């Protein structure tokens, strides 16, 4: 049953040192505010699962929260490298980072299988590539009807899913619209979940008969954090702040600059800052 609480309470209750976390959002609805709270609470030794690492994982990695990544793409979309990710892999800063690398298809199937309560996913993938050579979790099974060999990977079953959505009602039913990504699957695959939302409303608005809704009894914690996806976006609330993504390239390029930015903008701030970010002139938000 969903509990409605503050972000610090929700993260404190749901996320523990050493946990496996899926912090999801596919370009859209990336839960930056929740990620910052995990950093502020100083969580360590996390295993992070995420298709496209995006800035929030660059920040978690750079702040030393992460021991292992399970991922399929690690860049700053449309801009270039994630410097903290690269620094961790190439130079072991701030410490060595273990990786379990997949393709997007594998990750999507692994979430889907996790939501479906299966131990593994099968799909037609990885044919001829070098990824199975560097990831022991990529195996094969043979179709008992056709003899075709298919890729098999373990289902994702994170301890915690962290996502952002547009709105929840007071019972904790969460509604998502637009680019859906794998968030529904991530929540259903996880033991616990934290969902930040743009707003908590008395009742979900009139909606499609087939609206994407996570019922309250599938969600652990719901937190209202207006702007909580910034610099990612929330369809119907605010657009993606593309200039922030571009400026992150500079902010994150060297270690000291990164740490100074994190101190000013994360460690010394709280989730209420996000409402401010989405209202302010956008170029200034990345400063």
């Amino acid at each position, binding site marked *: 049953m969903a509990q409605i609480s503050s972000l610090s309470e929700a993260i404190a209750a749901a996320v523990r040192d050493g946990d496996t976390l899926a912090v999801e959002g596919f370009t859209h609805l990336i839960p930056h505010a929740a990620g910052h709270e995990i950093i502020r609470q100083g969580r360590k030794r996390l295993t992070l699962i995420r298709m496209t690492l995006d800035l929030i994982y660059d920040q978690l990695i750079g702040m030393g929260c992460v021991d292992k990544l399970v991922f399929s793409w690690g860049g700053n979309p449309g801009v270039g490298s994630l410097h903290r990710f690269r620094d961790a892999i190439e130079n072991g800063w701030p410490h060595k980072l273990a990786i379990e690398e997949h393709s*997007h*298809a594998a990750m999507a199937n692994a979430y889907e299988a996790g939501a479906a309560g299966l131990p593994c996913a099968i799909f037609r993938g990885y044919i*001829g590539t070098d990824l199975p050579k560097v990831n022991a979790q990529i195996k094969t099974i043979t179709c008992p009807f056709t003899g075709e060999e298919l890729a098999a990977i373990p289902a994702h079953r994170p301890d915690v899913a962290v996502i952002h959505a547009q709105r929840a009602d007071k019972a904790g039913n969460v509604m998502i619209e*637009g680019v859906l990504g794998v968030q529904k699957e991530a929540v259903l695959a996880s033991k616990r979940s934290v969902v930040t939302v743009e707003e908590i409303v008395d009742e979900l608005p009139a909606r499609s008969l087939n609206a994407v809704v996570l019922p309250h009894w599938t969600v652990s914690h719901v937190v209202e954090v207006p702007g909580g996806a910034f610099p990612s976006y929330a369809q119907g609330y605010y*657009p993606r*702040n*593309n200039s922030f993504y571009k400026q992150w390239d500079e902010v994150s390029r060297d270690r000291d600059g990164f740490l100074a930015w994190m101190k000013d903008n994360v460690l010394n701030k709280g989730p209420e800052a996000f409402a401010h970010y989405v209202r302010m002139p956008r170029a200034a938000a990345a400063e």
Partner: protein
Amino acid sequence: MADYKPNEMMTVAAARMLKNDDVCFVGIGQPSAACNLARLTHAPGITLIYESGTLATKPNILPLSIGDGELCETALTTVSVPEMFRYWLQGGRIKVGFLGGAQIDKYANLNTTVVGPYDRPKVRLPGGGGAPEIATSCGEIFIIMAQGKRSFVDRLDFVTSIGHVSGGDSRQKLGVKTKGPTKLITDLALFAPDPETKEMIAVSLHPGVTREQVAENTGWPVRFAAEVAETEPPAAQELEVLRELHARTNRAHIAAA
């Protein structure tokens, strides 16, 4: 003939290869520009799909990321990412997939994972993303990459997605039924696979480009077709639409910033 940049020639050449009834899996950057140029010129009915799940999208400006709101707002509908990869990509619904990479070899295998050894990389690249399965599930693959000896290499450091593997029928022997890379569009030339060996050979040079330039910018001994054509330069209308698309995109990004 209008003045244009090599990059514009590459995008225009790629756009021309798309047909009105194609269903394309579109990546960010060059592929997105080429596909939307095709849609805004000779292929208004083309179906564009981005891996964020947006089906039949018609963005007015080019998205910076694969899941910009613009893509969703102008789509026929938007499906979840698991559905995208299961029903649409693996289900064989996509006719043309676009790929690029940091490294390509003569059989159009691609590396987007790592330069140097996987465990001690010289440069850690972003990784495969959708590419490993795009490369095998789409009906055929168009590759867009600017040429250079560091990217057109004799041997990949890592095979992220396959092209024609080791040539000949090696791709089919892996059980893959799709065609693989049928076009390679660079800033210098157009390549296509040799029907027998499947090596990518230069079939057309862009206006003003010499064989020597192509050879100098290819890390393997490049082969040329028996008859090498000259690529039709960008028409005024193609350039105009492409530049207006980029200008509109820049204006929108500045307005949003």
